[in-house]
């Protein structure tokens, strides 16, 4: 390789620094606000620092911790349901050719592109008569609309490269259907379940309008709480809740940075977060 001119190289480094700075920048005032006690124009940094917002966030009266557990519960439930239902569907799409397969694929793809607002108004008016509005169960159900397709897409990718001959061998050696699944199939598809499950969790974790409408203001997940504090001008508490809210995503990114490469069919899931 020939030597790169100094000018081109400095341009490259400079644009790289600008890019990365821009990508981190919006998180900085949020973090600062969470430790600020009054931070008025035109101060570049707060005059006094304080842990007040964090103390408030972790106090029993604020409801932040309750909301955190509720959000974790809803996202976990949506994830588990997506896995239970998505793994078989992924197997059908990844391993078999059948009539109408393209139509099925299209139907699974559609919810990943059609925005939630377009379907949730109709669901809301049906859920009224079923008593599902304003309930946690109703919220979990609507979260399946964005989470399930990613689970199916990831599993279809996994099963497309899966060799069912191992299952046949286990069966011919006398293993029961359940044992075959538990000791042969499950370990082989585990990476897909983990990646797809993490996607499903994060997609559910970030839902706003579905929860707002179906939860009817009674099911207050973290994003709803965050929105309320942000629009009521409590910037310090907004900052603290914002930091708590982004933590799971960042932990998941650190743990899985290598597996979440763009080659996985699920990377589109990031578009929904």
């Amino acid at each position, binding site marked *: 390789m020939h030597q790169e001119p100094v000018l081109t190289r400095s341009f490259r480094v400079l*644009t*790289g620094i600008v*890019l*990365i700075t821009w*990508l*981190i920048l*919006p*998180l900085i*005032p*949020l973090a600062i606000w969470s430790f600020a006690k009054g931070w008025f*124009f*035109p*101060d*570049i940094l707060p005059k006094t620092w304080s842990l007040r917002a964090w103390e408030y966030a972790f106090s029993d009266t604020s409801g932040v911790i309750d909301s955190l557990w509720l959000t974790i519960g809803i996202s976990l439930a949506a994830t588990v349901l997506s896995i239970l*239902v998505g793994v*078989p*569907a992924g*197997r059908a*799409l*990844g391993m078999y050719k*059948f009539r109408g397969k393209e139509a099925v*694929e*299209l*139907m699974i*793809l*559609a*919810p990943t*592109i*059609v*925005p*939630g*607002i*377009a*379907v949730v*108004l*109709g*669901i809301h*008016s049906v859920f009224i008569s079923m008593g599902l509005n304003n309930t946690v169960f109703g919220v979990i*159900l609507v979260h*399946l*609309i964005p989470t*399930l*397709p990613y689970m199916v897409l990831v599993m279809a*990718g996994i099963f*497309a490269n899966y060799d069912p001959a191992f299952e046949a061998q286990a069966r011919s050696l006398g293993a029961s259907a359940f044992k075959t699944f538990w000791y042969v199939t499950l370990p082989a598809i585990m990476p897909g379940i983990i990646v797809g499950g993490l996607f499903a969790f994060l997609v559910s974790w*970030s839902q706003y*309008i579905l929860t*707002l409408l179906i939860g009817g203001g009674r099911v207050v997940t973290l994003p709803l709480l965050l*929105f309320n504090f*942000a629009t009521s001008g409590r910037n310090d508490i907004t900052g603290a809740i914002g930091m708590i809210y982004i933590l799971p*995503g*960042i932990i998941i*990114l*650190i743990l899985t*940075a290598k597996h*979440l*490469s*763009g080659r996985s*069919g699920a990377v589109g899931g990031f578009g929904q*977060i």
Partner: protein
Amino acid sequence: MKIFLLLLPAMSIIVLLFFGGLLIGLMRSFNYMPVIGLTDPDFSAYVAVFTDREFYLSFMLTFHIAFTSTVISSILAIGAALLLRRSFAGRAIVNFLFQLNLTVPHLVGAIGMLYLFSQSGSFARLAAEWGMITKPSDFPALVFDPYAIGIILQYVWKEIPFIGVIILANMQSIGEDYESVARSLGASKWQTFRYVLLPLIFPGVLSASVMVFAFTFGAYEIPAILGANFPAALPVLAYRKYTDVDLAARPEAMAMAIVIAILSAVMIYFYVRYSRRRVRG
């Protein structure tokens, strides 16, 4: 039969919830709902929506937001991918920072943008520090503004890594052989990019852009945080109509939801056309 059973649970959920929700929305937008005694479908909600100036302003604003955000993000994402695909010292850390906001929800980005670009935000304070302005109102309106600059900045922030990661993966699987051949045959760097690399990554760019366009057209919380009150983005307007105390406005909200759904159906068409055999991995 076995395939049918494997697909049954997932398809039931998608058909009942997703397509059911769409269908009910469609029926209600035509004022047709036999269960509650509405048996004569009509077009009154569509007439009301399409004769309302606010709807057109809102539609155009939303289209502007989605189109501008998608084009800017795609171009910058191609640039970022070109920058990050070569190896350099500290690449792992830079890659991690590049992907950091992928898992940060849009809502958090929107609040961050508010604190950065509002008239008492970080940039206004820097401008005051440097003597460019004396009071907050001197700072140009970049949020709650008629051109939706704050919203577009938020989307550009969020979607560069999203499109970028897809392009990077695309570039990795294409490899550099084609470009080396073009270079050895005397093509300039620009020619190699324009006539060799760009056509190869274009389907990937396009399918990612389609997802971004559909998302930015239908997202609620970002314009709700950063947008002006009038005209509001279409999803915000639809939500307001739906939750209006006047229940008669609900079919109009449904009609707007159907407009958004039709636009995303067009997006799905492009997506399927340009993302080749994506589902099968």
